[in-house]
């Protein structure tokens, strides 16, 4: 609790520095306007619901997004993340609720009446009959800007995405990665306050995607725009975001920083969606001094973990432990709080790390990770070995849903 207060105090001071220039480092470096009660969000969804016939795409979402955030809407396809984004762009009207952008209720405004918001489409939606240059300048021409001003702005946007030499080409003469950058430049050229990106890197291959992620982060920092991105790729969300909203069946499941979602997921859904996790289903055996004992597999083992608020004795809970926090050894542990024995079922060698799949007493498969820090291991762990898994009490998180 004390730790949170310090961060909150620090964040109150930091934004002045942030406002002065581009953010210098990753979002973790103290940029946390959501913790500052004096800040007003740039985008606010108020109890927004959207239904298509019987289907509820977005269910009673309330969400604040702050200036200069790189905000991710993360979830599997059909979870309502794109609908939420499209409502902000103005392509869909909420069935109920309000959307407020910079203090103005935009719920009923058409897309072309929302000049401070621009979107980059999943399909890129480049105009096939226009050159790259004309595509990038399209939005500026709508505003009736001066020809010379348009040219300057187009040149600036194209330079930002390194497209200058493709200015006279048509979209179908470009590669997927180049098209993606045209789409980005076209939205950026209008200098919106809020950029919406619908699966912006979904069509790129993995290597290009990693590159483009850092490209997006750089542009976001240089322009100081608020980015809201829709993605189903948890790694992408973890890499780029200041905060992530995890969605499931139209509902916001958890809204937090990537670190918080990873280290302190609020549900099994979040824990599973972000990274890999092992879950032990059990019941609360006892609670004492903020720690709970969880009886697992009918009381065969008792695991200790920090007790979250609101759990009661006898309640069904799940203990979630990240694979890298589990230590695997061939010798029975001595004095460890939590341990379980099993048989090694599978070993995956990935170079820097190895995965170990261990089948424990009740037949459940548990994954443990081990860094291959030394090249020669005295006693390598192999298939069919009897092994012990152990983890400290603070590694486990008790989830009640």
């Amino acid at each position, binding site marked *: 609790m004390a730790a949170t207060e310090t961060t909150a105090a620090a964040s109150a001071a930091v934004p002045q520095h942030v406002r002065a220039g581009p953010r210098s480092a990753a979002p973790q470096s103290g940029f946390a306007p959501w913790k500052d009660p004096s800040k007003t969000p740039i985008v606010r969804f108020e109890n927004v619901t959207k239904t298509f016939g019987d289907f509820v795409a977005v269910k009673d979402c309330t969400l604040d997004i702050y200036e200069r955030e790189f905000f991710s809407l993360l979830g599997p396809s059909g979870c309502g993340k794109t609908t939420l984004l499209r409502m902000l762009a103005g*392509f869909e009207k909420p069935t109920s609720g309000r959307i407020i952008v910079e203090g103005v209720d935009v719920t009923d405004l058409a897309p072309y009446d929302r000049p401070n918001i621009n979107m980059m489409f999943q399909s890129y939606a480049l105009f096939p009959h226009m050159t790259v240059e004309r595509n990038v300048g399209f939005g500026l021409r709508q505003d009736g800007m001066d020809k010379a001003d348009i040219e300057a702005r187009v040149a600036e946007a194209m330079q930002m995405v390194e497209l200058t030499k493709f200015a006279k080409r048509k979209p179908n003469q470009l590669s997927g990665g180049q098209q993606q950058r045209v789409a980005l430049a076209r939205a950026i050229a*209008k200098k919106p306050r809020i950029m919406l990106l619908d699966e912006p890197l979904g069509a790129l291959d993995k290597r290009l995607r990693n590159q483009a992620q850092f490209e997006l982060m750089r542009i976001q920092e240089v322009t100081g725009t608020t980015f809201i991105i829709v993605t189903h790729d948890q790694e992408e969300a973890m890499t780029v975001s200041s905060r992530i909203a995890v969605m499931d069946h139209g509902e916001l499941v958890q809204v937090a920083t990537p670190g918080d979602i990873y280290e302190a997921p609020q549900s099994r859904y979040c824990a599973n969606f972000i990274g890999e996790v092992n879950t032990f289903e059990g019941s609360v055996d006892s609670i004492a001094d903020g720690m709970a004992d969880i009886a697992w597999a009918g009381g065969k083992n008792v695991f200790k973990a920090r007790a979250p608020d609101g759990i009661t004795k006898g309640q069904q809970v799940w203990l979630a432990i990240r694979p890298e926090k589990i230590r695997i050894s061939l010798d029975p542990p001595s004095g460890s709080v939590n341990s379980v024995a099993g048989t090694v079922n599978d070993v995956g060698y990935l170079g820097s790390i190895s995965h170990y799949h261990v089948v424990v007493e009740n037949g459940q498969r548990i994954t443990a990770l081990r860094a291959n820090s030394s090249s020669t291991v005295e006693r390598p762990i192999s298939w069919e070995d009897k092994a012990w898994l152990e983890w400290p009490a603070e590694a486990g998180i008790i989830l009640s849903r």
Partner: protein
Amino acid sequence: MRRWYVIAVPYLWLLVFFLVPFFIVFRISLSDVATAMPPYVPNFDLAGGLAGIKDFFSQLDWENYIFIFSDELYYSAYWSSLKIAGIATFLTLLVAYPVAYGMARAPKEWQATLMMLVILPFWTSFLIRVYAWIGILKNEGLLNLFLTSTGLISEPLSIMNSTTAVYIGIVYSYLPFMILPLYASLEKINPSLLEAAGDLGCPPWKAFWQVTFPLSLPGVVAGCLLVFIPATGEFVIPDLLGGSDTLMIGKTLWSEFFNNRDWPVASAVAVVLLLVLVVPIVLFQRMQERQQEAGR
């Protein structure tokens, strides 16, 4: 070798059903009219040997072409045909565009049915459908009956036997030829392009002219040529619906053949008509090739 066979079939088709008839017509156009069977000379006679062939060719001349170029009637008939076809094509485009747009925007499961409805009139004879318009357009026809009975007009409109009736006939008859290519190009337009235009500050009515219309241009051009080319040589519609003052080359051609029985002049008129239409036909071919190259 197998490739050659595949190519040979359409070329053989063209040779038998286009080039050979064309050369027969062309040869008649160089002949002189005669009261005989067939009604022109010279006739090809193999019995005469090489001298006979020589004699045959020496009798062919360009007389008929000189005649039709010196007579005002043919010139104005060509010009009037092109004008009527041009105006009718534009009117067809105006009617077809909203229909094609509506079809392309209709729910996917409806589109096949709508397409079917557009093609359905082809199941009835063209001639009968044009005849049916007489029943609608004549002074005591359905249209006038409806308009007078609802009190919109007191005197019946005399549309029948006028150029207006020809326009109506052409627009009606060739509408599917305009709708289908328009629909094909409109249907290909990604709806997210219009969303993108809106997002970039372009309201829908401007987006239509900046995005939708330019992208549908291949369909517009194809449709216009598909209507313009046959409409120029149209005979049935001006004959059934048009008045005596409706001058169209198809009608002139018909009366040369069957009223004057002047096959050589009629053939010359037909050959010139073909040459007039070669320009738009080549244009159409070029555009199709370009589109195929673009792969869209």
